[in-house]
């Protein structure tokens, strides 16, 4: 009866291999390979702008997905945390003699990164601890409050933000004037973040987090410190958002309080919703759809004639989000999932196999 305990090693490793070669993993691996090869055939603008921004937003949105899918927490503070990292990098790297605002510490850029990530992680820990006793809509509201307060804090502490923002923030030599390198680094970072979050899901920590998502009361009665767990998950997500923030400020060259205002905050949530708040891959998929829609929709000749232009971009994205929400609350990833299941069922039907329904029932995935 014991299914795996005494299974011979060969069978186990074959099973492991089969699990690793699931359709999901194969698609992700193929997408990664495509992303890594993109600089060979994609235009500079597509690689250095569209895809670079996609990766940055994807990493940031993945932290929303991580918290939502594994922790049951929909956070609106992730863009703020990315912004904190950005402001810290800006304050730290700009040289004393350069014209800019901020503290102008003139540090080594890599030291600045460590500093920025440390500050961001600390901020995330404090904010996470304060929010850790709330769930559901209250957690959403409290993180929305963080985002709004964060904007005003940076707006009013002008020594830290210069109100008009910190400009002329250069990436380290490794990336300066090498936007393709920055892109490749972001692809690698995206893969690391993706794999880390997925691996985390099956660690004791990740399982406990999912337990807390499903039933915090039961978790407490089983001896778990639910608040601490939530706080640590939020801190981890904050650290990761900080990574995205560091690259964002390198890529953008400047940061100001409006960079973290409610607009970009909602944009990031929309990226997560488009992709699907319950699917990690969805974060990058949503980011790509969002950035591509932003940049290419206005080039469609047809779009011109029906009065939809860049000025209507928000409307288009709004309609897009609404459609996706109606079709599938799990976003594009959810839609893809359903198509996949539908196809499989079709295949089963055509083969006349009876294995269909059970598999379909167990087929929904994180």
């Amino acid at each position, binding site marked *: *009866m*014991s*299914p795996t*305990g005494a299974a011979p090693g060969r069978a186990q490793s074959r099973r492991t291999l089969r699990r690793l070669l699931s359709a999901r993993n194969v698609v992700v691996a193929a997408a990664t390979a495509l992303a890594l090869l993109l600089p060979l055939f994609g235009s500079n603008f597509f690689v250095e702008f569209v895809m670079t921004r996609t990766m940055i937003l994807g990493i940031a949105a993945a932290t929303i997905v991580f918290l939502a899918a594994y922790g049951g927490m929909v956070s609106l503070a992730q863009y703020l945390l990315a912004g904190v990292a950005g402001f810290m990098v800006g304050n730290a790297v700009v040289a004393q003699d350069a014209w800019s605002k901020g503290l102008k510490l003139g540090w080594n850029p890599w030291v600045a990164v460590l500093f920025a990530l440390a500050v961001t992680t600390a901020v995330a820990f404090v904010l996470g601890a304060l929010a850790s006793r709330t769930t559901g809509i209250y957690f959403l509201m409290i993180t929305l409050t963080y985002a709004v307060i964060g904007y005003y804090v940076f707006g009013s502490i002008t020594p830290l933000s210069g109100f008009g923002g910190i400009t002329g923030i250069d990436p380290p030599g490794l990336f300066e004037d090498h936007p393709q390198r920055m892109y490749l680094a972001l692809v690698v970072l995206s893969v690391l973040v993706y794999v880390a979050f997925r691996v*985390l899901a099956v*660690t*004791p*920590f990740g*399982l*406990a987090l*999912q*337990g807390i*998502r*499903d*039933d915090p*009361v*039961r*978790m*407490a*009665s*089983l*001896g*778990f*410190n*639910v608040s*601490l*767990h939530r706080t*640590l998950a939020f801190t981890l997500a904050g650290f990761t958002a900080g990574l995205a923030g560091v690259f964002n400020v390198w890529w953008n060259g400047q940061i100001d309080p409006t960079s973290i205002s409610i607009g970009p905050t909602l944009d990031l949530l929309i990226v997560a919703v488009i992709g699907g708040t319950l699917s990690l891959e969805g974060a990058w998929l949503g980011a790509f759809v969002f950035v591509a829609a932003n940049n290419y929709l206005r080039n469609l000749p047809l779009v011109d004639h029906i009065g939809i232009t860049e000025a209507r971009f928000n409307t288009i994205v709004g309609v897009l989000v609404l459609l996706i929400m109606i079709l599938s609350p799990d976003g594009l990833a959810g839609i893809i999932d359903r198509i996949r299941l539908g196809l499989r069922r079709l295949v089963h039907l055509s083969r006349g196999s009876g294995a269909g329904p059970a598999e379909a*029932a*167990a087929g929904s995935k*994180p």
Partner: protein
Amino acid sequence: MNTDAAAAASADRRGSLLNLEAVVVAFGGLQALGGVDLQVWKGDRLALLGPNGAGKTTLFNVIAGDVKPTSGRVTIKGIDCTELPARFRPRLGVARTYQKTRLFRGLTVEDNLYLAQTGRSGRHLALLRSGVDAEFRERARAMAETVWLADVIGVTAGDLSHGQQRQLEIGMALVTGPEFVMLDEPASGLSRGERERLVQLLLSLDPDITLLLIEHDMDVALRAAQRVMVMNEGETVASGTPDEIRVDPLVHAIYLGSEAGLRGADP
């Protein structure tokens, strides 16, 4: 484990495990418990009976730490737990189930049984698996067998049938290796056959395990318990052995009704 607790436990083989003194719980103006005293000894098998709203579940929640009493004292193994939050109970060997199942519906049966153990161990913040985990996994699989869930061990808890969910609920309490198990209506919603299996399971528990049971099904309650306490409107109205309770006219009057016999009415 706490040395006080160990000392208290070893002092008397049949030492007091749980002590409630004048526990009052009021929700706003509504008094759910009106000064309940209760003593449970190690190895006790106690069933709580009473109509809906009698305060049984509130009493459970006070013991489990999910509800703080308005006044009174809760002592478990000699330690004052009145103010301690729920998550410290497992360290005292307390495990409970819920009337309405509280499972991790997004996780598999095995993961549910595995998680139930890690909370007490302090392993739940770990990012790596270790030998302890293998042990937990082994125990989880063994428990799945005990509660007749071995064939569905890989199924997501949310996809189990109602009866299977009740079984898992009990399994999650037992897998922690508790000294004191509190079961809140474990038989509700089970078929006749499943009820019979449940009684067998409860009777087969290690005699050292203390059991506190809320149960509407008189048959299950009176077979599994050695001692019965009847509550009404937040107060204890009768207590005694199952045989004494079966014939107590007061109990019949307030709870069993004239012809209800031994079948309790499920809500």
